[in-house]
Structures are given as structure tokens and as C-alpha cells.
């Protein structure tokens, strides 16, 4: 019965993963990461339901809180980079290399 939820979760995760790998716009990449996190949340909740205990639900809350914190810091960084470099493409921020 829970199979559909898990398939949906996997699909969302894959969409997010591909997005992280192929998109250049930092905002989109960021949203894809959020998508992957929420795919995980969905899987956690599904398993919690399936196994009849609340551990998965609790972890989903933790993930949401972490994701919220991440959004705050991540968006702030992206905005700062955009201000200084006039670009939101992740390929343009490659100064930190060998």
C-alpha cells in the first residue's frame, strides 16, 4: 500500500539529483537540493507509517528544521555572490580550486 509513496519519493529524489547535477542556476540547484530533502522526508514518513512507530516522523521534523536553517544560510550566500559577481551560475564561482 505504501509502495506508491516510496516510488513517488524515489522519483522526487531522482528529479532533485539530476537537477543538482545538470542545472547551473544556483537558485535552481538549491531548490533541487530541497526537493531531495523532501523526498527523504516522504520516505521517512512512509516508513513510519508502515512500521507503526514515530521515529521516522520525528526525523522528518529534524530534516525540516535543518533544511530551514540551510535555506537561510544558503540563500544569503547566493545573494551575496550575485551582488558581487552579477551572476547566479554555479560555474562562475570556481575560484576555490587547485
Amino acid at each position, binding site marked *: 500500500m505504501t509502495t506508491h509513496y516510496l516510488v513517488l519519493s524515489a522519483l522526487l529524489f531522482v528529479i532533485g539529483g539530476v537537477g543538482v*547535477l*545538470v542545472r547551473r542556476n544556483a537558485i535552481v540547484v538549491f531548490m533541487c537540493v530541497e526537493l531531495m530533502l523532501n523526498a527523504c522526508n516522504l520516505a521517512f514518513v512512509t516508513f513510519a507509517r508502515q512500521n507503526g512507530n514515530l521515529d521516522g516522523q520525528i526525523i522528518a521534523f529534524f530534516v525540516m528544521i535543518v533544511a530551514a536553517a540551510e535555506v537561510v544560510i544558503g540563500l544569503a550566500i547566493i545573494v551575496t555572490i550575485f551582488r558581487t559577481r552579477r551572476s547566479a551560475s554555479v560555474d562562475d*564561482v*570556481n575560484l*576555490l580550486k587547485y
Partner: protein
Amino acid sequence: MEPAKIIEHSGGVIGVSWLLIALPLLGAAVLLLGGRRTDRFGHLLGVATAVASFVVGVLVFVQLLGFDPAERRLAVPLYDFIPGLTKMGLLIDPLSISFVLLITGVGSLIHIYSIGYMAHDPNRRRFFAYLNLFVAAMLLLVLADNYVGLYVGWEGVGLASYLLIGFWQHKPAAATAAKKAFIVNRVGDFGLAIGIFTIFTAFNSVSFAGVMASEAHPSQGTLTAIGLLLLLGACGKSAQLPLQSWLLDAMEGPTPVSALIHAATMVTAGVYLVTRSGAMFFPEGSTAAIAVTIVGVATLLAGAIIGTAKDDIKKALAGSTMSQIGYMMLAAGIGPAGYAFAIAHLITHGFFKADMFLGAGSVMHAMNDEVNMRKYGGLRKVMPITFATFLVGYLAIIGFPLLSGYFTKDGIIESVMEHSATLGWLAVLGAGITGFYMSRLVFMTFFGQKRWEADAHPHESPAVMTWPLIILSVGSIFLGAFLILGNRFMTFLAPAVGRPEELPSFHPFSVAGLATLALVAAGAAFAWVKYGKAEVPVVAPRGSFLTTFARRDLYGDALNEALFMRPGQWLTRLAVFFDNRGIDGLVNGLAAGIGGTSGRLRRVQTGFVRSYALSIFVGAAILVGAWFVVGNL
């Protein structure tokens, strides 16, 4: 008769016989450490310590004579040198005391002579310091009661010889000659050192007394090996074939040095070593003893041949020294019958050769340090004392009847003749060549036309130089008869080295003796025809192949160069190259390899976030894949 037992004794002058060594050593130390402050009296102090040492030597000798002949081997313990290996002590016996008197006696005369000879040298003090150092080391060599002590003295005289040959070290030739002498001697020392190791391993002792009294009976092979190794050492120090090449170059040193070290004393150390070890490692007829006689006879001929062709007066004398030491070795090789003659010849040779070297020095002193005999000639008139004393030395060395060399060399030839006729006749032949080259030397120097350089104003040397010459020539006249007649020396030496059961008797008109005289006379006559009567060309003629052969020291240097020096240089270059490129190259290559790999790997950090994400993704995929594979196993 076997050598006597060694007994410990430390009474009287013998108890303080260490003074013999300490006095000249002290002189050397004061002069070297005192620096220029001692310049004013340096030469006097040098002479004083040498003479003082001679006086002590005489006192020790007198006390030794007071003992019964069978008890004249006294060990004087000094101190524990290397615990567990050897103590240091002195051995006073007829053999060592003979050397002591020769070294300090002739040494003192040469010290005195040097005052005049080195008068104008700014470093005269240093010269005397080195001479004193030499005397001390040489005395240690002959007085030590063990092989390690002997070795210390042995290398000590090598050092003194190095310092003195290279005394005028601003001259590259002198510096090179000094280095060569030291290195060639070290080759000999290599043999001596291993010989001592073998002695210690075989007998568990390195003292003469310990080896003699040892219960151990090593195999014949070991004994022969020890003998041959000691002989190698002796060859180095005594300039015997095949280690003779350094002696001729050593003439770069000041002439008193050539007289003291390279004629009278140090170069005879090999004979001392063979004689001292004779009873133990060179028993009559053993392989080692035969090797000694072969080396001796080969060198006595080689030295004589070299002597015939040299125009440099000192080098001619050096060839003669080689040759005469060859006689001593030959005699020492035939066992107790020869020891006394070997040492007697060594002593008389010390006198007449020192006499001639100092005479040559006197001539050079007069001729602005010219050594080429072709530029001498007719000097007998301007240098009468030098001439007279030189003449005595000359007559002594060629064996003119009743002079020193006549008795001692004849003794050697006679005793060798009894041992082996072949060796005996070769020795006679050598005596004939001696007659030729020594006559040549005298005729070219003192007779004939003046062939001097334009600025030469020869004059007789000062008294401080001529008196030593006179004393030495007196010794050259009488010493031989004193030692040999009535077997005086053989009897005296017997407690130290043994003697044949039957004492030899002196035959003035034996076949060998007459043959020797005839050959010597022929050689001298030939020299008179070629160099006395005839005009001597100032520039050396090209000469035959044989002359070139002799002039080039029988190609000894060429041989050394081809066999050792050039391959050595190649080896050195190869080794340096291998070290830099091979070993160090490997080490640096390893470091560079690691560095290079990291340099390449670092390129993976591109700075593109998406490529990092891809690598994370691939990594995760591999992990999951691996988990599936492993999980399904």
C-alpha cells in the same frame, strides 16, 4: 742458538729508558707549540734533546753490558695502553740498543749539520721540531716491546717523513712526493696491520715476549701468512720492490732529511722488523724467509741499475740506498747466519751513506741547490773537506778493502753464498754495479772539467757542517772492522736474534771476495773511462733503451700509474657518478615521483561545484553497487 728469554727489569738507567723517547718528543712539542717565540733557540733545543737522548742511550748501553749475555733482554713495562689488547713497554736488548745508538748518534750529527744547512730557512725551528719528532717515533719503533707499539712508531716515522719530505711544501713537487711516500707506505702498513691482527688472533698477544712464550701452535699456513704480511710492511717502509717508488721522489725533502730518514734510519725499519720477528715468523728456509731473500736480491739489483743512470746526485744516492737495503734484506732472509751481518751493514751503511748524503748536501749548498751532476765537476779543489769525507764514504760503500763496507758487505756475500750460490753471485754482481755507479757519481762531481752554471761560486761549507762529516767518515773507516772481526757483533747480538751454532770465520781471500773486488774494480775503471777521463756532456745524451729504462726508475711509476692510479681515478669518478645519479638519484627520484603524482592528482579539484556533485553521485553509485554485489554473495 735461540734468542734469549725476555725478563722484566726496571732498575737503573734502564728503568727510565723512556726518557730516550720522551726527550726528543718534548723537544718537538715545545718547538711546535711554542711557535715563533722559540725561533731564536729552536735549533739549539732540537740538537740538545737529540744529544741528550744519545747520552741516555749510551748509559743504557753501558748498563746493559753489565748483564750476563744470556740475560740481556730486558722488558721495561710502562703503562696499560689498550686494556684487553696490549700494554706499552720497552724492550732493551742488543738489537734495539744497536738501533738506539745509531739513531741517536747519527741523528745528533745530522741535527748539528742541519744548523748550518738550514741556517737561511725561515722555518728552521719547525724543521728541528719535525726532526725531533722523527727521532722520537723511530726510537719508539725500535724500542717497543710489542707489535702495536712498533706500529705506532712505524706510522709515526711515516708522519715525520711526510712532514719533512714536504717541508718546502710551497713546491708542488715536494708536496706530491710527501703524499706519495705516505700513501705507498700505507699500502705496506696495510700488510703490517693485518699481520698484527693475525698474530693477535693466533697467539692472543701482540707483545714479543707473549708471542715467544705462547703455548699456541698456529698452522704453518698462518705463520707463513704472518711472515708475508710483515714483509709487505717492510717493503713499504724500506722501499723494497714492489713498493720502492716513493723513495726516489722523497729526495724532494731537505738533504739532512734524506740522510737521516731516507738513508740511515727510517728506511732500515723493514730490516729491523724482519730481524726482530725472524725467530718467530721467518725461520730459516721457510716460505716467508725465501720471499725476503727474493725481495732483497731483486731490490739490490733494481736499485743499483737505477743508480747507474741518474744525473740527480740525490736520486743516484737514493738508488744506492735501495740497493744497500736490498743487501740487508737478503742477509736477514737467510736466518741467524745473516742477522748480524744485516744489522752490521745497516749500521755501517748508516754512517757512510749519511756521510755521503750530507756531503751531497754540502755540495748542493755550495752550488746554489743545483742537484744535476752534469753541472758539477772538478769540485775536489774548492771543497777539500767535503771531497775527502765523501771519498771515504765512497770507498766504504764500494767495499774498498779494510773500510767498513768491505767487512759488512763481504760478510753478507759470504753468508749468502753458503746459503744459495745463485743469490750469492747475484749479490756479487750487485756489488760490481755499485762500483760503477758510485765511481760515476764521484767522478762526475769532484773530478773532470768544471761544468758549473755561470752564477755558481762553490766554497767549502762552515765547520758546523764539516765536523759531522768528519766524524761520520771516521765511523765509515773503522766501524766495519770493529764489528765484524772476531765476530764481535754477532756474539753481542746473539741474545736478541740468535746465531748459528758455528761462528763464521773471516776469509779475506775467498773466491767470492776476490770476485767481488775484481768486479768492483772493473766497474770503477769503466766509470773512469766514461766519466773521469772523457768529457761529460752538460745535457744528458739520449742514451740507449737500457739507460732510459733505468732513468725512468725501471718504469715503476709508469706501472703504478697504469695499474692503480688511472683505474683508481676511473673508479672514483664512477663512484661519485653512481652516488649522485644512482643512489641519490633514486632517493630524489622517489621524492620527485611522489611530488609529481600529487601535482597531477590535484588537478581533480577543478572548482566546478557540479563536477564535485557528479563525483559524489558516482561515488554513491559505486558504494550502492558494491553493497548489492557484496550483499548478494
